[in-house]
């Protein structure tokens, strides 16, 4: 039985395994998620930075049903841009360095090593007003939520004109009211 509260997207979850950013494997030029079975070659940022960005993206917009790969896609652009734009590179590397040093001070580990979400969120709250945080959060609004592949996980069906609209597909199928 599918849990209808989670929409049609629920079926997808059965073959998408998720893992936390702390479980990512880093090489000299890549970030690999062995459990979700994807890898991302890094271009402009250090793999450690990309890993921390993925974690920060999830901490900013935590959706437990959304696998890491969507967060990776959402922040990928910074890595690509950092390869050619030193300003972006400094902004992102600098922002993550700041997060890491705050994490070290408070918890004796870097950002991704901090165990509880609340503790990482507390570190993010402290930098909420910085251009780094504002850029990252602002970009995620479209970077994460405008991925068509993520919509089914929230039960949003997207485009409907080619299917004849919802006139015969449940625009008024509510039964509990």
């Amino acid at each position, binding site marked *: 039985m599918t849990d*209808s*509260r*989670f*929409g049609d997207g629920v079926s997808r979850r059965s073959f998408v395994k998720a893992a936390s950013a702390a479980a990512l494997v880093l090489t000299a030029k890549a970030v690999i998620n062995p459990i979700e079975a994807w890898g991302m070659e890094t271009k402009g940022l250090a793999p450690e930075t990309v890993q921390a960005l993925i974690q920060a993206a999830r901490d*900013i*917009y*935590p*959706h437990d*049903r959304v696998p890491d790969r969507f967060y990776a896609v959402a922040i990928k652009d910074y890595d690509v841009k950092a390869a050619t734009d030193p300003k972006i590179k400094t902004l992102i590397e600098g922002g993550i360095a700041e997060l890491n040093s705050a994490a070290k001070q408070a918890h004796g580990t870097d950002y991704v090593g901090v165990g509880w979400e609340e503790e990482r*969120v507390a570190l993010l709250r402290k930098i909420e007003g910085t251009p780094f945080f504002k850029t990252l*959060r602002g970009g995620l*609004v*479209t970077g*994460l*939520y*405008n991925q068509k592949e993520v*919509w089914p996980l*929230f*039960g*949003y*069906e*997207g*485009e*409907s*004109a*080619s299917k*004849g*609209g*919802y*006139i015969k*597909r*449940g*625009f*008024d*199928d*509510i039964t*509990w*009211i």
Partner: protein
Amino acid sequence: MAGKFDLNDDSVVVIVGSGAGGGTLGTELALKGINTVILEAGGRYEMEDFVNDEWDSFTQLAWTDMRTTSGSWRVAKDFANLPAWIVKAVGGSTVHWAGASLRFQEHEFKTKTVYGDVKGANLLDWPLTLAELEPYYAKAESRMGVTRTNGIAGLPGSNNYKVFEAGAKKLGYTEVHTGRMAINSAPRDGRGSCQQIGFCFQGCKSGAKWSTLIAEIPKGEDTGKLEVRSNSHVVKIEHDAKGKVTGVVYADKAGNLQKQKARVVAVAGNSIETPRLLLNSASSLFPDGLANSSGQVGRNYMRHMTASVYGIFDRPVHMYRGTTMAGVISDEAKHNPARGFVGGYEFETLSLGLPFMAAFLNPGAWGRSFTSAIDAYENTAGMWIVGEDMPQESNRVTLHATEKDKLGMPVANVHFDDHPNDIAMRNHAWKQGQAVYDAIGATRTMPTPPYPSTHNLGTSRMSEKPKDGVVNKFGQTHDIPNLFISDGSQFTTGAAENPTLTIVTLALRQADTIADMMAKKTI
């Protein structure tokens, strides 16, 4: 190069903008046999070009040229360069609009008299009455095919509507129905019926929704009397030594400046661009901008008191399926000062897709409070609140001192502060809206702040006396007889209802006036 009418043809009526005001006026004039040129800054996209995707559609249609903001309204903080969410394309914002079409109430034409003095508010009675407008309202409703008028059936209730209606009735509201919508509930006027596609804001792909793009302009063009020149951005209105307007200067698609002569000019660029154009047309004869002897051009900018409420339930709603706004509760629309504010407001169903929900639910918010709401997207119902806001002289569209657009013209700055009456009304509406969903067992309700303005009004207000406003009761500027304003800028006050039916009504009436004046050679 220009199409049908010659640039030097000084017998034509030139209209700036092809939206609710301009598209209707141009078509109506053409139907009367008057040669008309509509200059539209945006491109022309037809039904098959529209996309069922919120951000892609926004990129295709929205006005994203530079604008700036100031004032204490939250939009200035969250969307500093997007004060308004409106369209730059043939059809104007009627391509985006949802179709809600309500008449103003009688007292809303005389707020100064009925509400009395409200501190800080620049209230003024309209120089016309509901009775004077009624025949034109009737004509507009028939033209637009508004449901629940002219014997046209209402639209069927969607899931989002059923939740809204059940909550409203439980709470004791009685004026609840699926709206007066300019959306075909059955085929009419050569257009089909609503397929419940659910992307009304993104340009209806079925043609069920009225817009000037599909329902007016083609009829005007068929007469051979109307030319719509797209990608033609007007930068200046010109005048002669006597102070009569003689034509406009516009940038064509290639960015080259062209001059189109005119017998009459009507401006309908929506309430930010209209005053910007008047101000940018300042000359030695009119140093404060055209038609601005009152100093009121750009002032009294109104955006309606708006807000939304979303309610989360323990079971699915699928609000995004079907018409975006076909549902209304009108019980709070009356003027009842016992509630602690003057004027009233309407509740209307609203659904956003997931991408816009993420952008607009609580801009800037992050963390679990926000994401748990998004997680419940499928179980969410939504409503919009639209009410009368107070005109204030200091709420104002001005020219930016340094920022210029790519044509070198100063951009518009939109300054807005909520009036205490707006705040009191919004708080009341949030509470009542949340109560609607709570009444039927919502597990969580969310008072959502205003979006960038979809309703922009008042910046060239109508007034009886020239010293109080910019145009007379026909939209003719007090200062320049052959210069008209034909959009929502004319509104003296905003009323509680969505503005477009009234904009179309005024445009149809103005077409009669212009035709009459041209025949009598007074313009």
